[in-house]
């Protein structure tokens, strides 16, 4: 047979080629290079050209699509705000047993952190962040912002009573600042320039001598300099009270100020420091916990401390847990209280309603697509325009139209009452509930089902149906066994499109969904623009993305992604 012969021939040719290769080793091109190398070189140029052609789109997609998605994924686990706002406290809390209120040391760390945060105005943001986990923390942080100046005030007064020079910025500069920096700063101050003051540098050795004071003073100096609108200089400002607190703590801890000597320190400052060191023992101690409790009682209670400790990691699963109605507590992961569980319900509802909408779209769209694909081109084009009509109507007009039709005082209810099918006082609720969402969204998404179906059906030649009938199949069998399987790629494409679009919809459900017809996307939108809980919004979005990918994968496994045809 001719085909068989052709097969034998080509097989023979292939064998011949193999023999050839075996005998001569690697094939060489005309210029003596291995053929493979030449080919690769030729192909590389081609690939580069292809890459250059898609580069604009690729860059566009990376910037506008991939980057935001990565950003979203990152935000859903990002939690650096706690460790960045309260760095010392977070470290100090590492060894806290969470059984009794923290020690004075931890309160001191909090005082330093909080003062710096208040100056940078980031403490309320932390408050909002922690408020997601524990109600009431927002106002504790806000109040603490106003009261932070009280912390350490008692010590400041006592130091100044001891020697009024402690009030002078110059005293502190002399003690704390690097002599080189002092010189630089003086040179900067002498010239009238818009350049910023040189960044403050601690004196060498001071951090070993007075660790807390040096740290607190440094954050005071840097905070002044970092002020966006009118930066101040540590050379002209009295330090925060928390710096005095630090100094008191360092000195009472027995800093060896007696040993201070050498050229790094001005003599007067050293003497003053030694005097202070001698005096601190007679200072009236101030109870930090009580001070904080005066600002807000919350600081003398456990929840705020356990919450800070629990959420001190720079990355957290907290948002993801919240997105599935779980919460991270000091004692582990727990299910949130029943009356606050909402996300699993909404995920489930989103899935169920989207599947319903998808199913309705198949049921309504299939016959239409079939009709369209079997009509003469001119007629089908005209009908296609009708199909596309919803695309060209503004969302609000469409939705308002549905309201006019479906609401209880609406056209359909009026009609039903007039016919007598429905009693006037028992009008049907067809909008502001799930029915409304399903109806309006099916209408909007129907074209996304019809178009791929139509384009696939258009490519199924009528001869298949004829062949099936000539082979003895009834109309129904022919449709079921021959036509329908071939239109499955269109159904697949339509379903994927409709389903994915549908689970991401939020405007329509928001307007017509009422109480029970809203989707998870509505909560995402709420957290993005209203509650500003972007981490939770990102986690919800990521879960949604993962769900879509899983469904996509399932679809690929069950139906095969090659079986999707958009046209």
């Amino acid at each position, binding site marked *: *047979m*001719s*085909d*068989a012969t052709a097969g034998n021939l080509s097989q023979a040719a292939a064998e011949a080629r193999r023999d050839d290769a075996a005998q001569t080793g690697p094939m060489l091109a005309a210029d003596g290079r291995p053929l493979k190398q030449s080919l690769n070189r030729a192909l590389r140029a081609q690939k580069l050209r292809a890459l250059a052609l898609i580069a604009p789109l690729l860059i566009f997609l990376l910037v506008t699509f991939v980057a935001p998605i990565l950003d979203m994924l990152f935000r859903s686990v990002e939690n650096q705000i706690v460790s960045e706002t309260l760095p010392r406290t977070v470290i100090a809390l590492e060894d806290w047993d969470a059984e009794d209120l923290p020690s004075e040391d931890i309160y001191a760390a909090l005082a330093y952190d909080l003062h710096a945060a208040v100056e940078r105005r980031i403490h309320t943001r932390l408050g909002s962040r922690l408020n997601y986990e524990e109600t009431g923390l927002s106002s504790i942080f806000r109040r603490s912002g106003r009261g932070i100046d009280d912390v350490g005030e008692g010590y400041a007064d006592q130091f100044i009573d001891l020697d009024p020079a402690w009030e002078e910025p110059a005293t502190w500069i002399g003690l704390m600042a690097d002599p080189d920096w002092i010189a630089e700063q003086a040179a900067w101050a002498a010239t009238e320039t818009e350049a910023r003051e040189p960044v403050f540098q601690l004196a060498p050795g001071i951090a070993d001598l007075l660790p807390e004071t040096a740290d607190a003073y440094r954050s005071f100096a840097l905070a002044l300099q970092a002020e966006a609108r009118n930066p101040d200089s540590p050379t002209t400002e009295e330090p925060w009270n928390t710096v005095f607190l630090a100094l008191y703590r360092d000195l009472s801890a027995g800093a060896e100020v007696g040993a201070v000597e050498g050229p790094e320190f001005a003599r007067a400052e050293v003497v003053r420091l030694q005097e202070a060191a001698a005096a601190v023992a007679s200072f009236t101690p101030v109870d930090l916990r009580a001070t904080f409790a005066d600002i807000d009682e919350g600081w003398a209670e456990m929840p705020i401390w356990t919450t800070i400790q629990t959420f001190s990691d720079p990355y957290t699963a907290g948002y993801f847990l919240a997105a599935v109605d779980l919460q991270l507590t000091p004692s582990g992961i727990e299910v949130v209280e029943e009356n606050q569980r909402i996300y699993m319900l909404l995920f489930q509802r989103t899935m169920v309603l989207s599947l319903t909408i998808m199913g309705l779209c198949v049921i309504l769209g299939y016959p239409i697509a079939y009709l369209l694909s079997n009509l003469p081109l001119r007629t089908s084009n005209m009908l296609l325009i009708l199909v596309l009509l919803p695309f060209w109507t503004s969302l609000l007009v469409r939705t308002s139209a549905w309201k006019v039709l479906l609401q209880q005082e609406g056209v359909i209810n009026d009609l039903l009452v007039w016919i007598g099918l429905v009693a006037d006082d028992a009008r049907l609720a067809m909008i502001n509930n799930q029915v409304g969402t399903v109806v309006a969204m099916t209408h909007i998404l129907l074209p996304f089902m019809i178009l791929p179906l139509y384009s696939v059906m258009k490519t199924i*030649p009528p*001869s*298949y149906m*004829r*062949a*099936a*009938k*000539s*082979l*003895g*199949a*009834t*109309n129904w*069998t*022919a449709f079921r*066994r*021959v036509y329908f*399987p*071939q239109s499955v790629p269109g159904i697949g494409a339509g379903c994927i499109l409709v389903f994915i679009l549908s689970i991401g919809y939020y405007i329509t459900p928001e307007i017509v969904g009422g109480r029970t017809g809203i989707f998870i996307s509505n909560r995402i939108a709420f957290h993005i623009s209203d509650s500003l809980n972007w981490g939770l919004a990102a986690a919800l979005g990521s879960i949604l993305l993962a769900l879509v990918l899983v469904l996509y994968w399932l679809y690929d496994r069950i139906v095969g992604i090659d079986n999707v045809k958009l046209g």
Partner: protein
Amino acid sequence: MQDAFVSFDRVQKSYDGETLVVKDLNLAIGKGEFLTMLGPSGSGKTTCLMMLAGFETATHGEITLGGNPINNIPPHKRGIGMVFQNYALFPHMTVAENLAFPLEVRKIGKSDREAKVMRALDMVQMGDFGGRRPAQLSGGQQQRIALARALVFEPELVLMDEPLGALDKQLRETMQFEITNLAHRLGITVVYVTHDQTEALTMSDRVAVFDDGRIQQLDAPDVLYEQPQNSFVAQFIGENNTLEGTVAEMHEDMCVVRLDDGELIDALPVNVSEVGQRTKVSIRPERVEMNKDRLAPDAHTLKAEVVEFIYMGDIYRTRLRVAGHEDFVVKTRNAPDQRRLKPGERIEIGWLPQDCRALDA
């Protein structure tokens, strides 16, 4: 015909209610016959096939199969096998599933089904291809499968709608041979539609030449070629020289035609009966004689001038200017006694009167 297996009785078909695409069709096909419907596109042949298959309904007239009218029987109950132009193999089924399909819908048991499918595949030498998908087969292989599928449920009548149209020439010739062979071996009746006259002539028991919604001639291939009944058939089947003129003399078995430039030729009257009638005379290129010795002494001859000489291996093809036309073709055998003519040479040509048919104008 008394023992007609398929018959069309005064069948008409119109799609738009204004024009008839099939006009008064009468046709009887015998059992076991291989009948070809041949004609240019739009001649109504495919419409006839579709009416027979049941995909189109006759506007008027009756079609019977095995003596029973089938006008109102839906296609799937007619039990007619059909091979489509583009094979129409179901792409989502394997070859074996395609073949099993007609058996399944007939509720034939699984083992029986498998045996029949295997037999049908073997019949077209495709026994090893049952597990493939149609898209994995070449055009010729698909054609075989389509054929096997149309035969697997053992229909008595098989319709083929230009089944070889998509194949290259060599493959087409092989398949022509195989199809006719198979049809005769199985004793089935075949109605075959084509616009390729060679195919029609080589394969068929009888050929129905369609034009303008009518059968112009229905005859065995040799009769069709040798004795076309009208100028359409003469033109459509094989190569043909046509000269126009008026009947000058009428004899019993021959007539003399005066061509439009005044020259006289001998011809066999087919569609002419009286002097003065306009006619088209038709002469096959291989029946033109350039050697005067082989003609009757009183035969009329025509002067001709060689326009072109083409060497075609087995034959010579010479184009002549005759009676003012430049498209008069003569074919001669490549034989030792044949001279190769040169363009510009003047010769005389003639023919036996029975080879020149005076047809309708």
